[in-house]
């Protein structure tokens, strides 16, 4: 990697473009210094740097320059020369506007010199683009096409439009960090290889990324197997001003309302001291809540109150656009967002980022914080507010690591077969393929580099309707597959329409709408939770207690039961998981601080928190007291600092819950993805031993098993060492809610269940019913690819089986120790958040006879009891 000066860059540019650039920009930004020239030379480049560092122009300058060269020479044709792909439609629109500036500016400059140039066109094409606009693009293609991964896959398969793509020389992928870790990325990686194969040549790939790690792997993802890529790493170019704050110094004894008040005082103070603050919460409901309270806080200060707005993906498009517009024009004082503003949408200038609660990974913390600071020379300024004690420790370690330049590793899904199935249908529509030719193309995509021929054939067999159990071949037969010749191709004419309307990898999520008897809308329930309800159950929704009455026209009907206690626990599913890498760092921090405390070096610990972790006095106190209390509790049990759960110790303890049930807590500080795997495997073992459902609760710091009344804990952590984790987990998740909902997603991506058919949208409810019937059938089939993929997705992407196995190896080798505290009256301080966590899932295999028998037994008891009373 070599640095180029502005002069060196200008010299290589067309004089018009050079003049425009020279008048507009004083100097090159760091990524521009390194990346522009290599891109001009036709090399693949991955640029990783914070927002506002001129990444977009880095990528586009070469494109603009060459388009003007062509225009000047009179060689500009009605063809597409560059494709820009962004994961967000809104971002595409931003880019459209941002390109307007140079394109018009340079044309004007030419005109003033008496040179009339043909117009250089750019256009956006996404799912929102109208039919007439699409027609127009076909007649007069834009020179630069701005699109999304999904629409890119569609145009690639459109017989006429794709011919316009023949001349593409550059493909720019923006925000690549938000694609690598999910199936949208796997999908895009295959689209790029399909495109390259269609062209019969390579094109220049330019990837733009926020801070991410490791760049080498992301680069491989960008360019595929066997191509070279230059990495331009200017991730750490900006200075950082980060701090960890706590609203109070005692998070245990102060009452909740007081803490709430102090918390909003703190946020309000930060907001009023800055020009524009961007506030991140971890959930959408959190964003709403903070917006509401903040407006309340400023109810007497109209100019601030009116300038606070929420921005998240549940808001309607109109509201979102309005907020974005206000934001760009600098009209907002505070914007509260969940994840929607993480990505590169232009947010105008932000001088402070406030993060509420832990963002769960150093990388995410750096990405979010990086939305602040003007331009590339500005300083990143972010304040992290801790909401509870574990949060405070997490944030302290996170900030310390961020300042050290530590970043968590990305996880790239390995050869997802559902996405492959979808792309194979697209490929079959294009032409007739031999297996080897297809395999060659597919394996060039980095996530599929290890795809075996057998795996490919199993997917082709599924797509061609060869599976005996799936009678009704015509339905599944989207392609034909000739096993003799080893060739495949499209079958039937409807396939194209099905493909075009079902492209994509993002599952539809809906909830069950909840209304009161008199028709008032109260909120939404997760489907899995709703499924468990029986009439008469009382539960909490939007902070109030309701009694479940029943279903009516697809809606859940409830009546208020405000003054009563809920009878069923709340149910939370997917929350942001703490990254494994950061979890280990927190464990290390716990171990080190315990040593300091044990040596009586309390002041040293405080100083470290202040200096290295940038914690304010209150946060220092919160963390200090928490650690101290844990140590003292253990000492009262005759234990010492070496028994505190850390990166070397897994704690186990047990207590009786309010209902008198045993709750066995495992303090395994590895993040919830690893804990998910460990807890379900152990829960399954417990279930197999007692034959009754076992409740599991999962947090980032540990997990717990709840045993049904009358059963004592019957498993230990060491039992995990004896088992084949993958095998046990597949059985454990077999019939769970998680499996059912994930299978629906996989089957939808794999086009087994359609979202849209002959112009009709298929409701999620219907998709679910179909998924359940299908799952019962494919469960009986050996190695059905979409079932295999469901297991893989759950074990590798949703959970983290790889690191779970690593943890077990550490225990085996003695590097990790189990400290079993037995039955305690009160859980240890570190265990309390786990003890309070509600149910995450139930390990339960459907034994229909047992269910009936037990129910009869209960019925008999209740009746007998009543007979006696009478």
């Amino acid at each position, binding site marked *: 990697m070599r640095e180029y000066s502005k002069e060196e860059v200008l010299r290589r540019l067309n004089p018009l473009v050079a003049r425009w650039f020279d008048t507009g920009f004083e100097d090159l930004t760091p990524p521009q210094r390194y990346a522009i020239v290599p891109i001009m030379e036709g090399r693949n480049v991955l640029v990783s740097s914070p927002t506002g560092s001129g990444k977009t122009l880095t990528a586009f300058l070469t494109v603009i320059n060459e388009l003007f060269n062509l225009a000047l020479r009179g060689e500009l044709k009605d063809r597409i020369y560059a494709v820009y792909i962004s994961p967000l439609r809104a971002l595409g629109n931003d880019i459209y506007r941002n390109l307007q500036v140079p394109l018009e500016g340079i044309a004007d400059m030419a005109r003033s010199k008496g040179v009339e140039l043909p117009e250089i066109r750019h256009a956006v094409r996404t799912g929102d683009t109208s039919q007439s606009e699409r027609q127009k693009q076909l007649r007069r293609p834009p020179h630069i096409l701005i699109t999304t991964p999904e629409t890119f896959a569609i145009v690639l398969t459109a017989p006429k439009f794709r011919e316009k793509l023949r001349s593409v020389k550059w493909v720019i992928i923006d925000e690549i960090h938000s694609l690598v870790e999910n199936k949208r990325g796997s999908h895009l990686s295959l689209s790029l290889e399909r495109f390259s194969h269609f062209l019969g040549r390579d094109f220049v790939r330019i990837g733009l990324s926020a801070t991410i790690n490791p760049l080498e792997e992301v680069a491989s993802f960008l360019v595929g197997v066997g191509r070279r890529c230059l990495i331009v790493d200017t991730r750490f170019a900006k200075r950082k001003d980060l701090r960890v704050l706590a609203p109070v110094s005692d998070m245990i004894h102060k009452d909740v309302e007081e803490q709430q008040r102090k918390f909003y005082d703190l946020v309000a103070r930060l907001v009023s001291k800055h020009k524009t603050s961007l506030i991140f919460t971890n959930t959408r409901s959190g964003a709403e809540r903070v917006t509401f309270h903040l407006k309340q806080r400023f109810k007497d200060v109209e100019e601030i109150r009116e300038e606070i707005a929420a921005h998240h993906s549940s808001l309607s498009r109109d509201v979102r656009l309005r907020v974005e517009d206000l934001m760009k024009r600098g009209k907002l004082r505070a914007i509260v967002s969940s994840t929607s503003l993480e990505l590169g949408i232009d947010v105008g200038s932000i001088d402070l980022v406030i993060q509420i609660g832990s963002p769960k990974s150093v990388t995410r913390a750096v990405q979010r914080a990086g939305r602040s600071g003007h331009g590339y020379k500005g300083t990143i300024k972010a304040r992290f507010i801790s909401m509870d004690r574990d949060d405070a420790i997490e944030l302290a370690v996170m900030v310390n690591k961020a300042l050290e330049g530590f970043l968590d590793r990305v996880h790239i899904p390995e050869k997802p077969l559902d996405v492959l199935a979808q792309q194979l249908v697209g490929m079959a529509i294009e032409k007739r393929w031999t297996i080897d030719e297809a395999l060659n193309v597919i394996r060039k995509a980095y996530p599929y580099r290890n795809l075996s021929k057998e795996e490919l054939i199993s997917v082709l067999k599924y797509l061609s309707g060869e599976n005996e159990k799936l009678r009704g071949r015509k339905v599944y037969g989207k392609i034909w597959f000739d096993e003799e010749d080893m060739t495949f191709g499209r079958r039937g004419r409807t396939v194209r329409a099905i493909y075009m309307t079902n492209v994509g990898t993002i599952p539809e999520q809906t909830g069950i709408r909840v209304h009161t008897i008199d028709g008032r809308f109260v909120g939404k329930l997760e489907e899995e939770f709703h499924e468990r309800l*029986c009439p008469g159950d009382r539960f909490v929704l939007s902070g109030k207690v309701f009694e479940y009455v029943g*279903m009516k026209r697809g809606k859940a009907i409830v009546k208020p039961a405000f003054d009563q206690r809920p009878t069923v626990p709340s149910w939370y599913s997917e929350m942001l998981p703490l990254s494994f890498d950061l979890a280990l760092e927190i464990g290390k921090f716990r171990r080190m601080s315990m040593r300091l405390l044990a040596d009586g070096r309390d002041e040293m610990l405080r100083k470290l928190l202040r200096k290295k972790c940038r914690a304010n006095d209150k946060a220092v106190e919160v963390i200090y007291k928490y650690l101290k209390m844990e140590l003292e509790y253990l000492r009262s049990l005759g234990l010492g600092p070496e028994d505190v759960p850390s990166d070397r110790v897994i704690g186990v303890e047990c207590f009786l819950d309010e209902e008198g049930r045993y709750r066995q807590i495992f303090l395994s500080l590895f993040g919830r993805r690893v804990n998910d795997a460990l807890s379900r495997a152990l829960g399954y073992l417990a279930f197999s031993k007692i034959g009754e*459902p076992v*409740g599991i609760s999962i947090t980032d710091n540990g997990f717990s098993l709840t045993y049904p009344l009358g059963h004592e804990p019957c498993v230990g952590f060491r039992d995990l060492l004896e088992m084949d984790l993958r095998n046990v987990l597949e059985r454990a998740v077999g019939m769970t809610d998680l499996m059912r909902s994930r299978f629906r997603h996989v089957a939808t991506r794999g086009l087994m269940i359609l979202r849209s058919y002959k112009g009709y949208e298929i409701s999620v409810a219907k998709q679910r019913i179909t998924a359940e019937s299908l799952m019962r059938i494919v469960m009986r089939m050996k190695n059905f690819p979409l079932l295999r993929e469901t297991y893989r997705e759950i074990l590798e992407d949703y959970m983290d089986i790889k690191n779970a196995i690593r943890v077990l190896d550490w225990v085996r080798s003695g590097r990790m120790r189990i400290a079993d505290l037995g039955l305690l009256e009160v859980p240890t301080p570190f265990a309390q958040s786990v003890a309070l966590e509600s149910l995450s899932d139930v390990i339960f295999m459907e034994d229909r006879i047992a*269910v009936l028998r037990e*129910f009869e037994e*209960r019925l008999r008891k*209740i009746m007998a009891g009543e007979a006696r009373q009478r």
Partner: protein
Amino acid sequence: MKVELFPYGAFLKDLGVLVVADLHLGIEEYLDSQGLHLPYSQLPDMEDMIIKALDRYDPDGLILLGDVKHEFARASDQEWRDVRDLISTLKRRVRVEVVRGNHDNYLIPILRKMDVPLHDPMLDLGDVKLVHGHREVELEGTVVMGHEHPGISLRKDFGAKVTFKCMLHGAFEDFEVFVLPAATTIGGAKDVLSSEPLSPILKKLDLSTMEVHVVDEVAGVRKLGTLRDLLRVLQSQRW
């Protein structure tokens, strides 16, 4: 009246006939047209099930209690084929008659061709009325009906739930009602505890005193208790 249950239908002992309701043959093709693709498995499953019952009870007749086929507005190719295949197989064993259901609009020509009697709106045997259940009927003697697809969801610890098909039996002052489980193998049963009844006949009745008999291929047939009692048990459960 004496009724013996099997998955999924009933043997009416006094009359010596087997009754099966809500077959919904051809539903797969209908679902296909809606973009919901399931394997075509209903016909063979249904055939097995009815033949087993014929072997067991050796009845004088078999009555299909409405909704033999699925589509309202036409008879699809699959429906023609499936209905013809099923009835001709069964006819070789036993006398077959059909009571008309709300889905059976285009069934008449098929039945006529196969010489199968169709009772519309019901088969009235004096003391016993065999109806589909989508229309009101005078409540006297014994009413045997389908239409409702009744099911019951039972719960174990921590809210794990299992749904069973069931038969509902109500003995009222001067009449009794039997609501048969649906024979269709696609699409589950509807939990009678958490949803309102579909049939105008049931809408008029106090269901809470009706007895629930679970009918399940794996768990067999078991009488559970009245809906009122079941609800009490469910509410006494903790997660």
